[in-house]
């Protein structure tokens, strides 16, 4: 829960809360709230300008709630992020615009409550606290007929003043927290809140892709450094053995050769498994080389245009490579294409990938797992994809990926 810090504050021992800086933050919140409420009364008179003021006050309030331990309140969605004197109607058409107005009026009510609290509590506490000092100036503390003019006798009154001050501070804090919470409900934008959650989720998914990628690399490295080297060494030992046996015990050679064949088959199997994990060329030479290699291995001509200067993050390169592989495989399987084109270039707001073939079209994501796989990968990379494949062809898949997948620093 996002409101947890303030909720915790209210459940905690009041004495402990009073020893913390929280009450003072509450005082600042209350005091600045009162100051900000002054123009509100003015703008009620100038009501055509009121939406403008409520926009301004809400923008301040979204930041101000941080004083009492809230996170910043999410502001209006990008579409509404315009000064109200330009688009007051747009604002008045949105629910958020009206909620901001309500929030501003409520702010005024809270300011009145705060003012009352201050007048009552603060003045009382101040008067009581000043009691011990009055006799020093020849004056005396009087309540009705009761008059105290001996300094020592005023001490209990001063203690009472401290208690009243504590109560006042605590009450101000509670009021501030309640006001901040109400503000959050009224002027917080759900759309932006959701947007932020989506971004967080997408970030987590990219992290997951990265983790899988790291795992793949680890497996690949372990296979290379472990079994592959041992098997190659074993093959070498058998080779030695063979040169000896050739002369001394030729009868044993067939057995030896079978063992040797088995070792080579094991190595072949490991190689096949490793290249299925991720082609070496992608790890070592990057995406452009890997795509060229993919084109070389295709039975129909594949033209690859890749801006060689673009290096993407490793996990992204692996995804893009999988997407290209998937597209080529799909074209070969279903489209009877004669030519495939793969283009990757940097555009103003990201990276654009164009995949096309001259086949007979009719590609439908609902009928093949390949296209769904592509669209999943694109989503994971926070990109968008658009498939255009009329019956009769040609098929074009254009993918836009966000600019932050481009690797700018030195290679990892």
């Amino acid at each position, binding site marked *: 829960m996002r409101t947890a810090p303030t909720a915790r504050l209210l459940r905690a021992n009041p004495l402990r809360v009073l020893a913390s800086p929280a009450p003072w933050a509450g005082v600042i919140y209350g005091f600045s709230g009162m100051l900000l409420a002054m123009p509100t009364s003015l703008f009620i008179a100038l009501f055509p300008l009121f939406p403008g003021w409520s926009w301004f006050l809400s923008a301040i309030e979204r930041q101000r709630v941080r004083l009492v331990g809230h996170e910043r309140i999410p502001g209006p969605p990008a579409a509404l992020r315009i000064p109200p004197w330009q688009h007051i109607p747009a604002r008045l058409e949105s629910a958020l615009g009206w909620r901001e107005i309500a929030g501003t009026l409520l702010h005024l009510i809270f300011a009145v409550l705060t003012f009352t609290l201050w007048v009552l509590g603060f003045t009382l506490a101040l008067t009581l606290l000043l009691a011990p000092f009055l006799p020093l100036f020849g004056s005396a503390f009087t309540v009705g007929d009761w008059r105290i003019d001996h300094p020592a006798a005023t001490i209990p009154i001063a203690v009472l003043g401290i208690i009243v001050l504590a109560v006042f501070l605590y009450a101000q804090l509670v009021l501030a927290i309640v006001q901040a919470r109400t503000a959050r409900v009224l002027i917080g934008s759900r759309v932006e809140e959701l947007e932020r959650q989506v971004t967080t989720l997408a970030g987590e998914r990219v992290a997951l892709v990265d983790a899988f990628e790291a795992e793949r690399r680890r497996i690949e490295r372990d296979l290379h450094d472990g079994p592959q080297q041992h098997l190659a*060494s074993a*093959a*070498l030992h058998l*080779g030695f053995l063979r040169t000896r046996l050739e002369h001394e015990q030729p009868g044993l050679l067939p057995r030896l050769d079978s063992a040797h064949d088995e070792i080579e088959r094991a190595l072949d199997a490991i190689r096949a498994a490793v*290249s299925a994990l991720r082609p070496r060329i992608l790890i070592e030479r990057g995406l452009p080389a890997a795509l060229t290699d993919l084109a070389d291995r295709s*039975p129909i001509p594949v033209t690859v245009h890749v801006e060689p200067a673009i290096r993407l993050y490793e996990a992204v390169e692996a995804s893009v490579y999988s997407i290209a592989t998937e597209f080529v495989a799909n074209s070969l399987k279903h489209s009877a294409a004669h030519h495939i084109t793969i283009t990757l270039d940097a555009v103003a707001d990201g990276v654009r990938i164009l995949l096309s073939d001259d086949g007979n079209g009719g590609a439908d994501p609902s009928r093949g797992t390949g296209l769904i796989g592509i669209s999943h990968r694109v989503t994971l990379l926070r990109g968008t994809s658009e498939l255009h494949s009329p019956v009769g062809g040609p098929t074009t898949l254009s993918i836009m990926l966000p600019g932050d997948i481009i690797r700018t620093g030195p290679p990892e």
Partner: protein
Amino acid sequence: MRIGIAEDVALLREGITALLEQHGHTVLWSVSDANELRTRMHAPMRNETPELLVVDVRMPPDNTDDGLRAAVDIRRAHPEIAIMILSQHLGNEYAKELLADAPETAGGTGYLLKERVGRVADFLAAIDTVSQGGVSIDPKVVAALLGSGPIRGALASLTEREHEVLAHMAEGHTNEQITRILHLSAPTVERHISSIFTKLNLSERPGNKRVLAVLEYLKN
């Protein structure tokens, strides 16, 4: 022959050393790291310049293709030194890189899978081919290339027999070996080879035609 070895796995390094020395070669030194290899070749001690290098693709410091990159640089600085690459992978892109300047260099070039060293006779034959300025590509790499799609360009005009001959050339086999393997007569093999050169337009070009043909083949 004087040989330098760069291989990070101790077992293999020692095995290859022993194997080569058993068969009359001299192993001048062996290193386990691409930087060490560069240092050795940058300032070679007297009588320590090898005629042939055996280099593992993947080595420290980065454990990616450090060995291959060092080999490409060494080829530039010492084109006369023959280089035999050992790899765990079929990747043709790597072979291409080193072979790109092969026709112009005096030193031969080889690309073998690591386990090939266990096929002692094949390995030694490949070493010989490469040391004489030839090209030797691992049969499995050649097979992977063959199986990897259609034949395009000038290569498409070759007959099936000529393809077979070219594949054997890529593996570093001599005319006599091809004659034996394909059960052809020596003049037939020579006729096929000259036909390959003509079809690939290599007749007029300078450099080692055999190597050029293999390159053309790998480019496909």
